[in-house]
């Protein structure tokens, strides 16, 4: 059945790819191929291999399909996130945080992010609490990654979402069993290389299709009138325009979505990602970190920069070259540019044009009249044109990139892109499940029971539970807009709960144990409160707020913008203030402990 739907050549190429990845994973399993092995053996690793394996871990299908789709819906203003990804996620992270995180981790013999916090602040509670938060919430981010992969496979090959989820789950389970969680450098680097080539090709193809960089951007900007009224009402002013900034009116909602939620939530949240911090520690020397800045910067530009630019430009492609939509004009949007809302019509068996009920679309008319029809006694032309991406994606932003690849790109490219996404999914998922396992085994179980080294069974159980939860989440919560939302929730939560403690651990000798604990707990509590009761998109889905307020999706419903504000805007400043204030009134760590932590640094 799968072979019929997908085609044998595609299946063979994917199988060949998987065999290579699994073979490299097996080599790593049998021999010494992980970053740790290189460190033990004191061997050099090529900086490109190192940086590509980082990149493959950081960038997932969530970024490409989920956020690329969000750019297809909201436009190029999402490039602010790419800027943050490069400047904050690579430059700030690698230059300012990574060398110190690596040093601290090694001085304290810490092997997980919670362990580093726990040992730096001499608090078992902090380690267990952070471990639990990570264990509970990473599956949410893993689900976002899985949904992104499944949506592409389902759209590209016209198979059921459930089938693609089943296939992806089997691949991931096999990858985990084969030792994929160990972060084998060469399989990660292979995945990174495929991602790089796939995304670069996508960028070049897309600019060629839309007539070049400047011309493409200009014509994309001219499609502003096609933005659906519902989006215009929240501040969408076109695909190359920023939404207006302000407070107290729903027309500012989109700004509050694009900048604090997407740009800050994900852009800053990346600094306190547990799986990323562990990667810093497994680097052989700070020289590798310096080198990784070069490759990492270019890699992220080609990943998210391309995904967001192509996502936005897909609107122009669909409007000019997408499958034609036919119908009668019911509202002229811009006469000069030939933009109008049409009532979609289809020709029936008798050759007559008839309305397709409740189907309207904003289109760029291509000037051709394909027929005529009589409406209310008047002869009306049946015209045709192309619409914007979200219309072709059936209102589902996560389907924009898959639809675009399927429609605009040659079949062979779909296959390359499939490998790109599989690579992006597998490398990120393996680091996520690695973190899930160590969180519950090493950080929670071993700390609570005091049985050091006895957490193996719990670690493995934790990984299985994590995978099962992620798969279930992907099955029940498949709505594609979930991808950027779930990612932003996890990143925002990490920033609000852990960032002050993490930066304090690296740079602030004055930060106390009590300050770190309170900052983490309050950051987590405020974020949870906001997601459960205030931010209507998430609170409405969870449902508790409806029970408390008699049906409203936010306790601040009716007060414009409040219910669109991301938790990070409120929780992170509170968490920072708590860290500073509590430090002022509580006992500093001992000089001996600080000397151990900061040995060899200022």
């Amino acid at each position: 059945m799968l072979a019929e739907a997908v085609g044998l050549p595609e299946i063979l190429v994917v199988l060949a790819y998987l065999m290579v990845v699994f073979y490299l994973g097996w080599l790593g399993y049998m021999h010494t191929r992980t970053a740790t092995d290189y460190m033990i053996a004191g061997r050099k690793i090529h900086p490109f291999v190192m940086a590509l394996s980082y990149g493959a871990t950081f960038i997932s299908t969530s970024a490409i399909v989920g956020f690329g789709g969000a750019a297809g819906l909201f436009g190029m203003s999402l490039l602010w996130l790419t800027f943050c990804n490069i400047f904050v996620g690579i430059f700030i992270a690698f230059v300012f945080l990574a060398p110190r995180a690596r040093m601290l981790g090694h001085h304290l013999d810490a092997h997980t992010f919670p362990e580093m916090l726990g040992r730096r602040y001499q608090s078992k509670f902090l380690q267990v609490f952070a471990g639990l938060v990570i264990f509970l919430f990473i599956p949410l981010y893993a689900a976002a990654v899985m949904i992104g992969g499944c949506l592409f496979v389902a759209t590209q090959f016209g198979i059921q979402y459930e089938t693609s989820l089943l296939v992806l789950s089997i691949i991931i389970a096999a990858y985990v069993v084969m030792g994929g969680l160990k972060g084998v450098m060469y399989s990660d680097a292979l995945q990174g290389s495929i991602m790089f080539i796939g995304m670069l090709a996508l960028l070049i193809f897309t600019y060629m299709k839309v007539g070049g960089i400047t011309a493409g951007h200009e014509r994309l900007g001219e499609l502003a009138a096609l933005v659906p009224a519902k989006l215009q009402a929240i501040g969408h002013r076109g695909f190359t325009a920023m939404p207006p900034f302000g407070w107290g009116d729903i027309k500012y909602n989109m700004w509050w979505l694009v900048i604090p939620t997407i740009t800050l939530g994900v852009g800053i949240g990346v600094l306190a990602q547990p799986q990323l911090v562990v990667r810093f520690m497994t680097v052989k020397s700070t020289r590798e970190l310096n080198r990784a800045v070069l490759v990492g910067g270019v890699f992220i530009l080609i990943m998210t920069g391309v995904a967001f630019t192509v996502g936005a430009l897909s609107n122009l492609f669909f409007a000019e070259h997408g499958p034609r939509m036919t119908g009668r004009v019911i509202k002229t949007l811009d006469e000069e540019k030939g933009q109008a809302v049409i009532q979609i019509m289809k020709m029936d068996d008798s050759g007559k044009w008839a309305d397709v009920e409740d189907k309207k679309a904003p289109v760029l008319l291509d000037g051709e009249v394909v027929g005529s029809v009589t409406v209310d006694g008047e002869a009306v032309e049946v015209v045709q044109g192309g619409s914007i991406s979200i219309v072709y994606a059936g209102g589902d932003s996560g389907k924009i990139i898959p639809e675009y690849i399927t429609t605009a790109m040659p079949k062979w490219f779909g296959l390359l892109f499939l490998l790109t996404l599989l690579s992006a999914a597998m490398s990120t998922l393996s680091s996520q499940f690695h973190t899930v396992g160590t969180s519950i085994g090493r950080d929670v179980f071993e700390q609570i029971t005091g049985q050091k080294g006895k957490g193996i069974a719990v670690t493995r159980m934790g990984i299985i539970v994590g995978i099962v939860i992620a798969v279930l989440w992907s099955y029940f919560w498949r709505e594609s807009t979930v991808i950027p939302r779930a990612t932003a929730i996890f990143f925002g939560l990490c920033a609000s709960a852990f960032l002050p403690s993490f930066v304090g651990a690296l740079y602030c000798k004055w930060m106390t144990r009590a300050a770190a604990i309170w900052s983490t707990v309050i950051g987590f509590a405020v974020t949870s409160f906001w997601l459960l009761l205030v931010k209507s998109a998430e609170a409405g889905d969870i449902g508790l707020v409806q029970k408390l307020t008699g049906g409203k999706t936010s306790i601040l419903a009716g007060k414009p913008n409040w219910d669109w504000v991301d938790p990070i805007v409120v929780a992170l400043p509170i968490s920072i203030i708590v860290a500073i204030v509590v430090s002022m009134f509580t006992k500093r760590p001992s000089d001996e402990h600080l000397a151990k932590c900061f040995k060899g640094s200022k």
Partner: protein
Amino acid sequence: MLGIEDKWVAAAYILCIASTVLCVVYGLATWNRGQEKDEQVAEDIRWAEEEKKVEKEL
């Protein structure tokens, strides 16, 4: 600029490229900087041996 009328979006586009250039220049300038001293290497190896045990558990 570059066909993007809104200066804030054009700025984001340019800043993405500028920050990549910054990363490239920084990477090249520090390409050989940051080798660890011998005593640090010993600690790093001890850390890596413990990390190997963590990996085995997976």
